[in-house]
């Protein structure tokens, strides 16, 4: 079935940032692409006009299991399956844990972890039926090294890496690969608020002496999702200019 139709990629949080970069890249390579986000960005509006046949967007509360299951089934019905899932959607929360509001803790856990589990469950069912698939989770260097002020965020990203390894073992027998990419700091909305001084400090601590370009992260996500990585599963690949080495 998979060889008779374009491959299908589901990319969460595809309306902006790294997600939008990945959506554009997979569309350029003739994939059918589906994304879900809370709101429609100008990027999504343009794609809905330009790529009507190959692009699908839905406004879905990513924490609502039934809505997410329906989204996955809709994508599979529209495009014929789901070959790739990229769990990209996430939020960054900063602040030391002792004074962080409970609402912020809940928000980051629900967005970065619960919603990922729910979407992965929904898409993996489609992949199970197909007997193939690949899942790439966008983690963070904060899952690998400790940094002050990001304990809640780090907890969610470390959890994703635990999920990556366990799910790789669960689903490997059905030809479904699961990997993570752990980006270091790269130019995106998520770090738009950090000061020039902070950027310079990060660059100084990075062996390659700079922040990543967003396409450098997208390259690795694309590689892990592709057949080029057909014997890689359960791994985390840091794309961080060496900051964790």
């Amino acid at each position, binding site marked *: 079935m998979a060889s008779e139709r374009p491959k299908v990629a589901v990319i969460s949080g595809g309306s902006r940032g790294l997600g939008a970069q990945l959506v554009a890249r997979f569309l350029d390579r003739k994939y059918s692409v589906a994304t879900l986000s809370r709101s429609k960005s100008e990027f999504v509006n343009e794609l809905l006009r330009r790529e009507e046949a190959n692009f699908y967007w839905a406004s879905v509360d990513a924490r609502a*299991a*039934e809505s997410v*299951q329906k989204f996955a089934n809709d994508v599979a019905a529209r495009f014929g399956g789901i070959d790739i899932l990229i769990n990209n959607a996430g939020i960054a929360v900063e602040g030391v844990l002792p004074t962080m509001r409970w609402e912020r803790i809940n928000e980051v856990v629900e967005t970065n972890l619960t919603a990922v589990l729910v979407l992965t469950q929904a898409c993996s*069912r*489609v992949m*199970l*039926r197909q007997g193939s698939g690949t899942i790439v989770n966008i983690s963070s260097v904060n899952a690998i090294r400790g940094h002050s002020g990001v304990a809640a965020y780090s907890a969610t990203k470390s959890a994703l890496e635990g999920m990556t390894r366990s799910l790789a073992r*669960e*689903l490997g*027998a*059905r030809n479904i690969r699961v990997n993570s990419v752990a980006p270091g700091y790269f130019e995106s909305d998520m770090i738009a608020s950090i000061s020039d001084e902070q950027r310079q400090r990060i660059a100084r601590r990075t062996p390659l002496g700079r922040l990543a370009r967003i396409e450098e992260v997208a390259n690795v996500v694309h590689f892990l999702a592709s057949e080029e990585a057909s014997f890689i599963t359960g791994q985390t690949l840091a794309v961080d200019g060496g900051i964790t080495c």
Partner: protein
Amino acid sequence: MLEAGTSHQIEATVVGKIRAILAERGAAAAAPLAGDSKLSAHLGLTSLDLAFLVSQLEFELGVDPFAKLVAITDVRTIDDLVDAYRQALVPNSHKKPDGSLADAQKRAEKRRLRIDQR
């Protein structure tokens, strides 16, 4: 998708999917499957096989009884599995007295309390 899902159709669909999995691994597809055949102990199905089966049956029958209605941990035999789909598709059909998710949660809570008291 089955509109009303008669009991016989449901059973035939479930058993057909189980046979397909057994055939895929080279097991004797023609061997008789009894309602009380245990999915794991007798037929050798793994939890991933069961997940595969449930995903296929969701596609075929249009329902997933294990989302809310029935605890998958209560499914041990072919009859258990068929019953789960009957409950979802034919609401007035026979329902096992201990097959609900709420009952399974109560039993899990009792087990947890027993462990805590040790």
